[in-house]
């Protein structure tokens, strides 16, 4: 149902409707920032990536065709931009982000969570590019292997191979934390 709404909004955006753009962009802002953050490893970079991705939505709307659905298309935009960003800039950890994250109600839990986040962020950041994308899209975005395969332009079997190798590497890098 939301996809149909997205299509309608994109049709309006194609006609230059700024209000429709703001509705559409606002609807997808949170998950896009989160996805970009996981792929770039840094909230400040994620903000820049999403800014550019949203501009692409605005500028490309007149030429956009709803062949694969807005969300699928936008996934590809964010993923490609995030990877391009990573290629151009060295990895910066989450702690280098420009803004503090929203405080959690329990400081001890926040500390523990922060440490886990840093470990996992670093481990994921060290993965080869395609493995990193496969992990984030599969485990964090909940995409099916077929959807991930389509986004990466590879076979489903290749996605499985990426995931197997990624999990093996993550298990090794996170071994001390996994024993706790």
């Amino acid at each position, binding site marked *: 149902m939301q996809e149909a709404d997205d299509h309608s909004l994109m049709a309006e955006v194609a006609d*230059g409707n*700024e209000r429709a*753009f*703001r509705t559409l*962009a606002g609807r997808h*802002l*949170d998950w896009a*920032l*989160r996805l970009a*953050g996981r792929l770039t490893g840094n*909230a400040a970079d*994620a*903000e*820049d990536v*999403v*800014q*550019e991705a*949203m*501009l*692409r939505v*605005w*500028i*490309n709307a*007149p030429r956009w065709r709803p062949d694969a659905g807005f969300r699928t298309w936008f996934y*590809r*935009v964010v993923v*490609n*931009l995030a990877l391009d*960003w990573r290629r*151009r800039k060295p990895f910066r950890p989450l702690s280098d*982000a*420009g*803004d*503090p*994250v*929203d405080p959690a109600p329990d400081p001890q839990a926040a500390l523990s*969570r922060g440490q*886990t*986040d840093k*470990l*996992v*962020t670093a481990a*994921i950041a060290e993965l080869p590019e395609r493995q990193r994308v496969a*992990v984030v899209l599969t*485990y*964090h975005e909940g995409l*099916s*292997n077929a959807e991930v395969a389509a986004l990466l332009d590879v076979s*489903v079997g290749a996605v*499985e*191979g990426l*995931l*197997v190798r990624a*999990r*093996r590497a*993550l*298990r090794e890098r*996170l071994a001390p*934390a*996994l024993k706790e």
Partner: protein
Amino acid sequence: MQRARLQRLIDAYGADPARWPAAERDAAKRLLAETPAMSARLEDAARLDRALDDFNPAVPKAAQARLRQGWANLPPQETAAVAIAGAGLPRLARMLPRAVMLAAASVAGIVIGHSGIDGPVTAIARIDVVTLISGPESILLMEE
């Protein structure tokens, strides 16, 4: 389903059957129930699953606010180009007022001295034009 295939599913998708391919899920769960020896492998995978599940970085509210604010003044779509300083599209892009974006797009590739008609930007030393025409993969950077 062969045992090797079940192992492969666990190694690739983790311990949660919800993440296994739907077409194989039921057969895999049946085989798993009949194969107690697989429990160690499953627990090992579950530990990594939990670590990955915990990786849920918060989205700064300030970033959301800045992005929403940047949408208040959008450049015309037909311009199909956005001026930025430096590589990529740094934060300057969302701070550029509409007039600067229009001017920059119309004289792409040259140095602009801007008088600050709509905002605080007074000069852009270098212009990269990002052509955003044909699709998500098409980033064309033309420097100076």
